[in-house]
């Protein structure tokens, strides 16, 4: 009897794996290496010009005010956006699920923002939020003084709005799929046992959606980092301090040729995302058992 027969399915994974290693893992390992050295000259093709400094770059980064501001803003933004996006998309998914006809059309409507290129939407956002834009025009009709939507503390919420607008549909699709996977039998049994709609929602829908929640949370966290594209196109490299994100810092470090700071910030970002997703997956596994 043959032991451990070779799984030919692995061969099909190979091309993707090779690409992943070449284009993601290998550059990351190189970039991780850069974060532990200080160079007098870039590129570091001459070892004589770079000095191994251990965690110095990491310690320096945590003393850098701009970096700390970008980290704080990113965490605040995630703290607002991720739960808000999850709650709103869950509500929308539950409502869509209640609709008996044209369910797909509703899902499609929510998905449209996802396929519109950010670049083309920026013109609209600019026209809407500019100091002499449509929103301020509407406010002026009610004798309300104009608001600087893109250059004040309120800007953070403008970006939250844009993020929700763009990403709601994606989460709705995941939640609709998750809800459809819950056997109808559970609800029927609960009704027979006298459970109301609210109790069924909390005890059946929510508890059976835990794997979907984990996936939605991970995707929302990842997507929240991608909001940089919109912010950058709307407000440039140096926006109002409330929306200066980690990606601004990293992008600006590239332009400043500050490779140690860039790679150190990238490594920390990867570490944060890894820890968060691992924690969420662990939580999911525990709940699923």
């Amino acid at each position, binding site marked *: 009897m043959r032991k451990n027969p070779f799984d030919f399915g692995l061969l099909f994974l190979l091309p993707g794996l090779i690409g992943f290693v070449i284009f993601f893992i290998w550059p990351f390992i190189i970039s991780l290496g850069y974060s*532990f050295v200080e160079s007098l*000259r870039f*590129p570091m093709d001459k070892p004589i010009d770079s000095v*191994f*400094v*251990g965690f110095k770059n990491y310690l320096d980064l945590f003393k850098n005010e*701009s970096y700390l501001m970008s980290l704080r803003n990113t965490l605040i933004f995630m703290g607002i956006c991720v739960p808000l996006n999850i709650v709103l998309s869950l509500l929308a998914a539950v409502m869509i699920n209640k609709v008996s006809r044209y369910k797909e059309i509703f899902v499609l409507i929510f998905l449209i923002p996802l396929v519109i290129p950010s670049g083309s939407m920026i013109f609209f956002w600019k026209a809407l939020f500019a100091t002499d834009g449509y929103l301020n025009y509407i406010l002026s009709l009610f004798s309300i003084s104009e608001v600087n939507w893109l250059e004040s503390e309120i800007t953070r919420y403008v970006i939250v709005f844009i993020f929700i607008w763009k990403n709601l549909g994606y989460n709705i699709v995941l939640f609709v799929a998750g809800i459809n996977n819950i056997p109808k039998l559970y609800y029927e049994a609960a009704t027979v046992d006298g459970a109301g709609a609210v109790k069924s929602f909390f005890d059946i829908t929510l508890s059976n959606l835990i794997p979907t929640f984990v996936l939605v949370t991970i995707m929302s966290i990842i997507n929240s980092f991608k909001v940089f594209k919109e912010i950058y196109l709307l407000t440039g490299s*140096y926006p109002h301090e409330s929306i*200066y994100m980690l990606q601004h810092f990293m992008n600006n470090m590239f*332009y400043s040729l500050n490779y140690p700071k860039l790679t150190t910030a990238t490594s920390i970002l990867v570490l944060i995302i890894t820890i968060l997703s691992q924690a969420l997956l662990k939580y999911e596994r525990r709940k699923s058992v």
Partner: protein
Amino acid sequence: MKRFLSLMYAVLIAGSIVGCSGETVKPDNSTTPPADVKSAEDLLNNEIEGEITVSCYDTVFYRDFLETAAKSFEQKYLGTTIHVDSVSQMPDVKSNESEGEKRIAIEAEEDAQGESDYISKINTALMSGGGADLFAMDILPFYKYAENGQLEDLQKYMDLDTEFNMDNYRKNIIEALKYNGGQYIFPLDYSFNYYEYDESLFDEAGINKLQASESFSNEQLVEIAAGLFDTDPAGPHEMFGMKGYINTSLGTSMFNELFLENYSGFIDIQNRKASFTDGTFSQLLDIIKDWEDKGYLLPSDSAEVSLDDFTASTDNQYYYKLKDNIELLLRYLRKEGWELSLPTAGITPSTDNNDVIAGMQAVANGSARFSYSQAYGMNANSKNKRLAWEFIKFMASQEIQETLQLYPGSLTGLPINNEARLSKAKDGIIGELFIQSGKSSANKELTEAQQEALDEYVKTVESFSDMLNTYPIMDTTIDSVINSEVKQFFDGKKSSEDTAKAIQSKAELYLNE
């Protein structure tokens, strides 16, 4: 796997300890020259051969000069090749001709995206070990490249190269461009501004005040003329023939002038400090608004000045005119019957009949500011530094500086090479610099009057040049932040305090990154 990770972690920690407590490079106190000086010494003994690339963004001021210089260099040093790489669009050249007069306007538009793309391209090339051998410092933030070790410190070449004699150049200009003690860029020319006043608009007391000093700040000038302006018998004349603000960094406006006058107080790039919220900056904005309201300045609007507007406004009179150093030469030529006018963007043309030199445009703390139109830095990763240095030297030599117009369409740059500057002054007095206008003089012998004018011109230029000691290190990112915020102030969308706060926050963010 866990074991492997633990091992990796342990290795990292161990490495970190070594990194923190490891040996640090101590300065060598022995008599042996430092390694980089030694290598520069060896390098200067190499043959001048091979090829280099010179990269510039600007096509107006740099490319033609570079291509001509490259051709001459290749002829002088056979077997060498100089590639010139430039990216920006050629400017629009408009001209009109009437009654034998020809007017030419060069319109160069700002292209923020193009500039950003160029910087990005250079950065990517540098990070991957490539990049041109020489960079024209037209839009690149040279201090950043210098801080990151991307630019070669040219001081060692200047010190070790026996063919290079610093006494042949304007030392104060070259040294004023040092950054953190290193000579990372080498200028080919320099220019400065000074003020002239319209004698017919001043009384004797005013003229005496204007003749009593060598340099003036804008506020001092306003103070001298304010009383006369209020009781102007000849009708309303603006104090300055410029606008309070123009939405471009290519021209001159009172905001630019006052900002640069106090630049070191607002931005200290070397120490990463921005000081816009101590009240000085908002006061500066309010002063300009006040001067606009009083009619001292032309109103800030975005209307373009056409060639016809230019023609129509040549009879205007202003109390003061900010002039470029080339005007010192034009003053003499006008007396000889030449009709030449080289206006700067943002400054409205006017009659020059009654203009008298007031003095140098002063900068806070008694300094005097200059600018350059061309300067070059050497890529620290260049594979042919010998040739790159030789080409810089060649561009700064008397041979090339006196035969070339530093840049076509404008003649304001004074050569950094002393002999070339003198030679160009002579060409200027006899009119050879203005060949395009059709009034060139083939006769290089100076008449007595021309010799007198040349002596006077050289004396004035050199005495002004002796005062120059400040080059504000500009940064395109900070400039663009300031420009966009200040525009909102002049559009009436923001108060001066809010503008100052917004700039402070962004400039601080940028400088602390």
